[in-house]
């Protein structure tokens, strides 16, 4: 019986160990393409994200089909013709906060961070680097960042007829509220 108790405490310790991870299942990522001809905006409110405060490791994942457009036909074309959501349902980011040492996760405040990693869209992985901010308030995290993505970098073909309607650099805005991950 004693051994059992001891082992239980060991297991609990392992569980408590995971407390320095933060997560969300409903983060927001939007993208915005602006040209003189047309502005296109789409929003995704179902972003999964996990941040390991100890190592600075950071991962995002979202379903391409969950991007909402103002125009239904545009949304259909986005999924059918551009990002081919049936073939490549998810976009992911796997990276690291380079200066996570500067962030005191136990103290409220706003911390500028530098994030580098690999962004995979349309099945094509590209290294990316971006600056962002982590805001900490009473144990909750808000992380946000804005960076640019080129469709061509991810082998997303854009026909010449619509080329001037879609920006060369598409602005991606990440805004996630993370809570401690309890096991």
């Amino acid at each position, binding site marked *: 019986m004693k051994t059992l108790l001891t082992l239980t405490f060991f*297991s609990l310790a392992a569980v408590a160990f995971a407390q320095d991870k933060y997560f969300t299942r409903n983060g927001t990522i939007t993208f915005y393409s602006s040209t003189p001809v047309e502005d296109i905006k789409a929003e995704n409110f179902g972003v999964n994200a996990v941040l390991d405060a100890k190592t600075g490791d950071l991962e995002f994942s979202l379903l391409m089909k969950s991007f909402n457009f103002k125009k239904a036909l545009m949304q259909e074309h986005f999924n059918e013709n551009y990002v081919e959501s049936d073939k490549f349902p998810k976009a992911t980011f796997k990276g690291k906060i380079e200066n996570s040492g500067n962030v005191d996760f136990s103290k409220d405040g706003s911390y500028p961070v530098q994030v580098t990693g690999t962004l995979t869209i349309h099945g094509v992985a590209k290294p990316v680097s971006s600056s962002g901010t982590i805001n900490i308030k009473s144990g909750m995290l808000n992380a946000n960042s804005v960076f640019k993505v080129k469709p061509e970098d991810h082998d997303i073909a854009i026909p010449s007829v619509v080329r001037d309607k879609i920006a060369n650099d598409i602005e991606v805005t990440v805004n996630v509220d993370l809570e401690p991950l309890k096991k």
Partner: protein
Amino acid sequence: MKNSLAILFFVLLPILAAAQEEGSLLDLLGEEETIEYASASFKTTRIINSQSIENVAEGVLDFKISHRFGMLNTGAYNLFGLDAATLRLGLDYGITENLMVGIGRGTVQKALDGFAKYRLLRQSKGLRNMPLTLSLYSSIAVNMLKWPNPEQDNYASSRLTFTHQLLMGRKLSKSTSLMLMPTLVHRNLVATTAESNDVWAFGIGGRQKLTNRLAITGEYYYVLPDQIADIYHNSLSFGIDIETGGHVFQLHFTNSTAMIDKGFITETTGQWGNGDIHFGFNVSRVFTLKEPKKVPEAH
């Protein structure tokens, strides 16, 4: 035995937890299953003449311009039919995600028509598995030609025709979709007693994508025997769908002149074998009248 099992369990638990941390951080969240609806089984709400299982999205107005030219076998004198044109102008609107309505006016019989289409079941996988999409469809058409004999007692109701359909379809793969359409056409007045007021027909249609923006389509309506006059034949059509931005162009060959249900199902006079084939097109242009609500996914 019981004890040792418990010990084994508690020993394994932290090991398993530790092992998990080796992989992706996102694995910690587990895989969340969602309902994945089949989308874009067809490019538009019509296969060619027939309705497809697609609806226009909520708040979207679809302006449809449909043309059928004369018959190819009228020869070079008529530029293979291009000298004659039959038109239908229509407006479709999505009231909700699953309910759409439409109105139109066509050259054939100067007919006015209106319809409603309701999607009852929607093909999906994941959290909910539904093998097919099923829509209920009803339309009404009014013959607006001048009365041939204005002197006699004419009843407005005699010019009405109703069509009811079950639209069943499945997106078999990313590029292949198939549909079956059991159909009842009710005509308030028929020319002779030999023709039935209720006409049962069975439609089959499909779409095969060739590239992301190009697809071939086909549809066929089989009218059960001894219901319509001998001069009428089954409707058969083949086409291609081309998509460019906000437009969808459907180009096709068909033996039917009318573009409304009762017209192509029960009043097709052309025969493919005789070369009574019309070239035609549908152009669809959509306008977003009401933007979708911005609702973050519920969790």
